[in-house]
């Protein structure tokens, strides 16, 4: 399957088609408005960052380890929310989703381990990633409707993240790509399924008379803020290296790309 999908609306609509469903015009209009606001993971800067990460063994391993921990954290959040629900199809879907995230966590760890011998980095302390989700669970107010809205935005972000990695790995690391590609595409396919069921609920609720558009817009906005902060932090990492290597650099093109990424990301953050 060709995963290249240009916009959030295209992506979510394609997941609806996979399910044999058709989204309402109101819902599609809401997605178009989110697209028009410039959702960060679909921004070209995200693809540029992915290329830079894949070209840096240390950051590549660290990124995939962190993805693994983030997937584990999400699975724990999903379990906690499911525990607050009555036994409905939604609860079954969220529990199955949690199981997928645990599997993804193991897959990311395996991908990082495969690349680790080529990276000069020790183990990272990713406990802070788990803490973010623990704090979310502690303050969760029980509103599963808002939670599903957050889920859609999170899964869409993951889809675009992973797609940018697949493209970057295929061009920069062909030897690794063959093995990584199968694993990443399986995860991406799962993310598409998660987007499909969560967006399906939101559309159903919108058709039923509940205006979930403000909640959905807020969810995408919140994920956007976090993602741009992450982009800026990654860009700063490259910028620091550029400063260290500037005097004796042998890779002018790499330095130029990195500084360009940093400049755009920091400007965006500001």
């Amino acid at each position, binding site marked *: 399957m060709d995963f290249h999908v240009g916009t959030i609306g295209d992506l979510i609509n394609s997941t609806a088609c996979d399910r044999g469903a058709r989204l309402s015009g109101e819902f599609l209009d809401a997605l178009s408005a989110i697209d028009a606001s410039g959702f960060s993971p679909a921004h070209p800067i995200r693809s540029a960052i992915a290329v830079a990460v894949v070209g840096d063994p240390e950051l590549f391993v660290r990124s995939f380890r962190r993805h693994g921990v983030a997937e584990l954290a999400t699975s724990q959040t999903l379990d906690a929310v499911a525990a607050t629900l009555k036994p409905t199809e939604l609860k079954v879907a969220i529990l199955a989703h949690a199981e997928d995230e645990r599997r993804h966590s193991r897959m990311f760890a395996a991908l990082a381990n495969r690349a680790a011998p080529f990276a000069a980095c020790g183990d990272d302390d990713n406990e802070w990633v788990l803490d973010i989700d623990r704090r979310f669970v502690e303050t969760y107010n*029980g509103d599963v409707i808002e939670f599903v809205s957050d889920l859609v935005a999170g899964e869409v972000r993951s889809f675009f993240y992973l797609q940018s990695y697949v493209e970057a790995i295929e061009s920069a690391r062909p030897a690794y790509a063959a093995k990584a590609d199968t694993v990443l595409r399986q995860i991406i396919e799962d993310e598409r399924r998660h987007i499909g069921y969560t967006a399906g609920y939101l559309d159903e609720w919108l058709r039923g*008379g509940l205006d979930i558009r403000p909640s959905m817009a807020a969810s995408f906005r919140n994920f956007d803020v976090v993602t741009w902060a992450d982009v800026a932090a990654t860009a700063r990492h490259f910028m620091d290296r550029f400063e260290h290597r500037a005097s004796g650099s042998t890779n002018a093109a790499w330095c130029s790309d990195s500084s360009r990424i940093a400049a755009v990301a920091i400007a965006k953050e500001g």
Partner: protein
Amino acid sequence: MDRSSELVESLNEEQFVRVPAGGGTEVEPARRFKTKLLEKYVDETVIEDFSAWLAWKCPV
């Protein structure tokens, strides 16, 4: 079928109530629908004072 016809076709009875011809409010049907959804999905035994919580989540 043009876009307007598709939209009309996708509307259900509650949405017609939500947008009355003479204006009026769409808050009440939406509030009732959200209450109905939360009652359907959320286990009332895990929320302390479920009625008060529902009133907070779905204010009149």
